[in-house]
C-alpha cells in the first residue's frame, strides 16, 4: 500500500525540489545590501591600482616618464612592461594559443590598451598618478577593417610574430592572418550547389558588441610573502582555470594559489578571460607585499575587456524550387582584434560555429572561418551564448528567410518543410554534431496557434494594401537549435584541461547538507537550483542545502560557468554525486531495517520496506546512523564527489515569433508582441527559467536594436560609455510572453539541457526577421543590425515608404 497521497504530497512540498518555482536562496543578502562583490572586499593595508591606457590605436612607445606620478603623495609604484620583463610577465599566453601584451611592450596595438599601472593608497591618488604618467608615441597606420588587414600592402600589426608562418591553428598566410578553420565537406557541398536548382546568397555583418554586465571586472590580489601564498578575489566565471593559469605564469605552486570568485554582478562572457589588470594587480601585490585592488571603470570595461562577435559572414543556401534545402556554404572573416584572445575550447578557434546548419535536415554543408588581426581590443567571448552559436544561428535563420523570400514561400512553411523530424533523433548533422533530442514541428505548431499566425499575416496584408497606414508591420520567426554544455573532454578542453565539471556533496549528521561546485553563479541562481536537484535526489529539503562555489581552496576543480554549461555539466555532476550517496544510504537503511537492499523502495525522502508502510528510515535517520554507527564494512560519513565528463553536448531549441510596428515617419520600431517558446528539456525551477528567458530576450533586443561598437578610421572607439552604448531601459524593453515544450535530453542524468542563453541566441535574428519582414513587399531580403530608428528611417526613405 502506498502512503496516503496527501501525506506524500506534503513531504514532496517540504523538499521544494526539482520542478518547483521556489523563491531564491540568494536573494536575502542581495535585497539587504549584504552581497559581497569584488569591490566590496577590503583587506588591511590594501592599495589601489589604476591603469594608464593608450590614446591611439597603433603606435610605437617612444618614452614613458614616471617621475611626476611617483612624486604624487600616496603613489607607491608605477609599473611598465620594462618592469614586468625580468619576471617574463610582460606578455601572457591567451586561451586561443596566441600571446597578449600584459603592458604594451614597445608598441600599442589598440586604443585603451594597458601601457602602465599606478599603485597608490586610494583610488583617487591612483587616478592622479595615471594623469601624471607621461607617454609619448610615434603613430603608425591603423587597420580597422578586417578585409583591409588581409591585403598585400596592409600594415603589419604584430611585429612580435614576424616570420611565424605557423599559428596555433595551422598555417598563417599573411602577417595579419591568424588562422583559417574549416568544418564540413567542401567538395560534397560544392557538388550539391552545382546541381541545385536554386541558390541564394547574402552577406551578413554581425557587429562588434560588448556583454557589458552591470558590474565591471576587477580583483583584489593579496600575496603573503611569509607563507608564499597568493589569494586573489576576482570577477571570474572560471576561477579554477584562472588558478591554473596564474600558477603556470607566476611559478607559484597551484596549491599556494587561491582564487575566489565572490558574488558576481553579471558575467555574460565578459568575465571568462584573464585580463592584464588581474595580472598587474597580482604582480603589484607580490612586488609591494600588500593587497592590491583593481576595479575597472565602465569606459575601460567596454573599451578593453572582452568584446563579442565581429563576424563578417557570407552565407549561401542551395535548395530545390519547392524549398527543400540541400546545402549550406559559409565563409566568415572574423575580426579578432590585436591579440587572439578568444575564449573557446582550445581545438575550436571559431567555437561551435559549425552548429550553423541549424534545425534543418540538409545533405551537405561547409564553413570556413578566417581569423584576422586588427587594431581593436582583443576578446571574442561568447556574449550570453555558447561559443559563436549566436553568430551561427543568426546566419542560418537569416539565410532561410532569404531563401523563403526568393521562392515566395512563407517563412513558417519553409522551416516546417526542412526541420529534422522527431523520429530522426539522435541526428548527426552535416557538420558532425549529434543532436540529442528535439521535436521542432510540435513546438512550431504550438507557437503559430498561440499567436494566430494566419490572422497576423492577414492583418499585415491589409496594412500593406493601405498606402496611408502610418505604420509598417513586420513578423519575425526563428526556429533555432543551440549546442551547449561544453563539453565532452574527447573534443573540448581549455589549455589541455578537459571540460568536465564537478560536485562534492556532504550530508551532515543531522540531515542537512552542503554541496561544493566547480561552477560559479553570476545571477543564474545556482544556490537555489542546485539545492533543488539534491533535494529531489536525496530527500533533503532544499532549504537546508547550502551550495558553495567559486573558492578554489574548497570547491572541487571545475571549468566554470559560461556557454550554458552549468546545468548540462555541473547539474549532471550533482545528480551523479547524489546517486553515490543514495546508494550508500540504501545500504545503511537495509542494515537498520534488517532487510536486503532489494526489499527497499525509495519514496520522496525515505527508504521503505516493500509492502510495509510502517517500516522506513528517512534520509535524516540514515545520515545520523552514517556518522553514529555505520554497518560493518562501510566507512563512516555520507558524502561523495563526482567529476562529470559529458558524453555529448545538449541541444536546446526554441521557436520565437515577434510582431513589430514601424513608424513610417520616424523609423521607430515598437515590438507589439514577442512570443518565446523554449525547450530546455527537464525544467528545474520554472520561475528561474522564466526570469532568465526574460533577461536573455532583453539582451537580444539590445543587440538587435541598438548595440554596436563603432570605430573611426583612426581606431577611436566612438561609443564606450553608457551614454552611447545601448543598454535598454524598462521603457523600451518589450513585454515578453513565454511558453515551453519539454523534450528531455536522453544522455543527461536529469534530462536537462540548459536555458539562459537560448533567448539571446534566438531573439536576435527574430528581431531582424521582423524588421526585414516589414519591408519584404518591397523586395528587401536583409537589413544589417542594429536596427536603430535612424537606420530604419533610412531604409524607409530608400524604399519609398517614409511618410
Amino acid at each position, binding site marked *: 500500500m502506498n502512503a496516503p497521497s496527501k501525506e506524500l504530497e506534503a513531504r514532496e512540498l517540504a523538499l521544494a525540489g526539482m520542478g518547483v518555482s521556489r523563491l531564491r536562496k540568494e536573494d536575502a543578502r542581495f*535585497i539587504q545590501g549584504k*552581497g559581497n562583490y569584488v569591490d566590496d572586499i577590503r583587506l588591511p593595508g590594501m592599495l589601489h591600482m589604476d591603469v594608464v591606457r593608450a590614446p591611439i590605436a597603433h603606435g610605437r612607445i617612444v618614452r614613458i616618464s614616471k617621475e611626476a606620478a611617483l612624486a604624487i603623495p600616496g603613489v607607491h609604484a608605477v609599473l611598465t612592461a620594462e618592469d614586468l620583463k625580468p619576471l617574463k610577465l610582460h606578455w601572457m599566453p591567451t586561451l586561443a594559443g596566441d600571446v597578449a601584451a600584459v603592458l604594451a611592450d614597445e608598441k600599442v596595438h589598440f586604443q585603451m590598451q594597458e601601457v602602465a599601472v599606478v599603485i597608490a593608497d586610494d583610488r583617487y591618488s591612483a587616478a592622479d598618478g595615471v594623469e601624471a604618467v607621461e607617454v609619448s608615441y610615434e603613430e603608425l597606420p591603423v587597420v580597422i577593417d578586417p578585409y583591409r588587414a588581409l591585403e598585400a600592402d596592409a600594415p603589419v600589426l604584430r611585429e612580435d610574430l614576424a616570420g611565424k608562418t605557423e599559428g596555433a591553428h595551422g598555417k598563417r598566410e599573411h602577417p595579419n592572418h591568424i588562422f583559417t578553420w574549416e568544418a564540413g565537406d567542401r567538395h560534397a557541398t560544392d557538388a550539391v550547389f552545382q546541381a541545385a536548382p536554386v541558390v541564394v546568397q547574402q552577406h551578413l555583418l554581425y557587429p562588434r558588441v560588448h556583454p557589458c554586465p552591470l558590474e565591471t571586472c576587477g580583483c583584489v590580489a593579496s600575496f603573503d610573502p611569509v607563507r608564499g601564498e597568493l589569494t586573489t578575489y576576482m570577477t571570474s566565471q572560471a576561477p579554477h582555470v584562472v588558478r591554473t593559469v596564474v600558477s603556470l605564469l607566476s611559478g607559484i605552486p597551484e596549491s599556494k594559489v587561491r582564487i575566489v570568485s565572490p558574488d558576481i554582478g553579471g558575467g555574460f562572457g565578459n568575465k571568462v578571460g584573464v585580463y592584464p589588470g588581474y595580472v598587474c594587480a597580482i604582480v603589484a601585490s607580490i612586488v609591494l607585499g600588500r593587497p592590491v585592488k583593481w576595479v575597472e571603470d565602465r569606459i575601460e570595461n567596454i573599451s578593453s575587456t572582452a568584446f563579442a562577435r565581429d563576424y563578417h559572414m557570407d552565407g549561401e543556401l542551395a535548395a530545390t524550387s519547392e524549398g527543400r534545402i540541400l546545402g549550406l556554404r559559409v565563409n566568415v572573416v572574423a575580426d579578432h582584434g590585436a591579440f587572439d584572445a578568444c575564449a573557446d575550447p582550445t581545438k575550436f578557434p571559431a567555437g561551435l560555429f559549425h552548429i550553423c546548419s541549424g534545425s534543418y535536415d540538409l545533405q551537405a554543408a561547409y564553413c570556413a572561418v578566417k581569423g584576422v588581426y586588427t587594431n581593436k581590443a582583443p576578446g571574442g567571448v561568447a556574449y550570453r551564448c555558447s561559443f559563436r552559436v549566436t553568430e551561427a544561428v543568426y546566419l542560418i535563420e537569416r539565410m532561410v528567410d532569404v531563401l523563403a523570400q526568393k521562392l515566395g514561400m512563407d517563412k513558417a512553411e519553409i522551416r516546417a518543410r526542412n526541420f529534422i523530424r522527431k523520429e530522426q533523433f539522435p541526428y548527426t548533422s552535416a557538420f558532425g554534431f549529434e543532436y540529442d533530442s528535439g521535436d521542432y514541428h510540435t513546438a512550431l505548431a504550438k507557437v503559430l496557434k498561440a499567436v494566430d499566425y494566419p490572422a497576423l499575416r492577414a492583418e499585415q496584408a491589409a496594412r500593406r494594401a493601405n498606402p496611408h497606414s502610418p505604420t509598417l508591420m513586420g513578423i519575425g520567426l526563428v526556429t533555432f537549435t543551440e549546442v551547449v554544455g561544453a563539453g565532452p573532454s574527447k573534443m573540448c578542453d581549455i589549455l589541455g584541461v578537459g571540460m568536465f565539471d564537478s560536485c562534492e556533496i556532504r550530508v551532515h549528521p543531522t540531515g542537512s547538507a552542503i554541496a561544493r561546485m566547480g561552477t560559479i553563479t553570476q545571477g543564474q541562481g545556482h544556490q537555489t537550483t542546485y539545492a533543488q536537484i539534491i533535494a529531489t535526489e536525496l530527500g533533503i529539503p532544499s532549504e537546508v542545502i547550502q551550495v558553495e562555489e567559486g573558492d578554489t581552496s574548497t570547491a572541487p576543480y571545475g571549468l566554470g560557468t559560461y556557454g550554458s554549461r552549468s546545468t548540462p555539466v555541473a547539474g549532471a555532476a550533482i545528480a551523479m554525486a547524489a546517486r553515490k550517496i543514495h546508494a550508500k544510504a540504501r545500504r545503511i537503511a537495509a542494515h537498520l531495517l534488517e532487510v536486503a537492499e532489494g526489499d527497499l523502495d525509495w519514496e520522496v525522502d525515505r527508504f521503505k520496506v516493500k509492502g510495509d508502510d510502517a517500516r522506513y528510515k528517512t534520509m535524516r535517520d540514515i545520515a545520523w546512523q552514517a556518522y553514529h554507527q555505520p554497518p560493518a564494512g562501510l566507512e563512516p560519513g555520507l558524502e561523495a564527489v563526482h567529476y562529470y565528463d559529458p558524453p555529448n553536448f545538449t541541444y536546446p531549441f526554441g521557436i520565437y515569433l515577434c510582431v513589430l510596428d514601424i513608424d513610417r515617419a520616424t523609423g521607430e520600431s515598437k515590438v507589439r508582441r514577442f512570443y518565446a517558446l523554449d525547450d530546455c528539456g527537464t525544467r528545474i525551477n520554472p520561475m528561474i527559467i522564466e526570469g532568465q528567458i526574460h533577461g*536573455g530576450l532583453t539582451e537580444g533586443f539590445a543587440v538587435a536594436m541598438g548595440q554596436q561598437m563603432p570605430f573611426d578610421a583612426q581606431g577611436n572607439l566612438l561609443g564606450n560609455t553608457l551614454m552611447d552604448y545601448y543598454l535598454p531601459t*524598462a521603457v523600451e524593453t518589450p513585454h515578453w510572453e513565454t511558453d515551453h515544450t519539454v523534450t528531455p535530453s536522453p544522455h543527461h542524468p536529469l534530462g536537462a539541457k540548459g536555458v539562459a542563453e537560448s533567448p539571446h541566441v534566438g531573439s536576435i535574428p527574430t528581431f531582424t526577421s521582423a524588421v526585414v519582414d516589414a519591408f519584404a513587399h518591397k523586395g528587401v531580403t536583409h537589413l544589417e543590425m542594429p536596427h536603430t530608428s535612424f537606420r530604419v528611417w533610412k531604409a524607409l526613405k530608400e524604399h519609398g515608404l517614409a511618410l
Partner: protein
Amino acid sequence: MTKKLISVQVNGRRHEAAVEARTLLVHFLREELQLTGTHIGCETSHCGACTVDLDGRSVKSCTHLAVQCDGSEILTVEGLAVKGALHAVQEGFYQEHGLQCGFCTPGMLMRAYRFLQENPDPSDEEIRMGMSGNLCRCTGYQNIVKAVQHAARKMRETATV
C-alpha cells in the same frame, strides 16, 4: 588635498567626517562608512546602481559630491529594513523574482522606495517610466515591474489599516 568637515545623517545615524572636496558620495558611503550595498556601475549617472535617497529624492550617488550632502539625510539599501522586517519593496523583489545577479538591486530598491511615495498606485507603464533611470542586465524588467506592483499593493494595504 584639503579636507572639509561634513555632517550627514545616514540610515538614521549621524556621521561626521573630513572629506576631500572631490570625494563622490558613493565612495564616501562605500569606503568611509563601509556601506557597500550601494554599487557603482558606470560613474556617469546612467545605470542607477548607486541610487540612494537624499533628503526625500532619488539621487545617483556616483555623480554627487559628499560635500554637497553636508547636513543632509541619506537612506541607503542597508537602512530599508527596520529591525529585521523587510520593507515592502524588498519583499516585492523577493516574491516576484525581481533580481538575478543582485548588482542593480540596491539602486532599484531605493528608486522603487521613492517612486512609490511619489506615485502610490502606478500603472505598469508609469513604473517603467519611473524606474527608467535604473538599468538591469539580467531580468528584462518584467519581474521588476511586478515587484514594484507587489510592493505598491502591500503599502496601500498597510496604509489603509
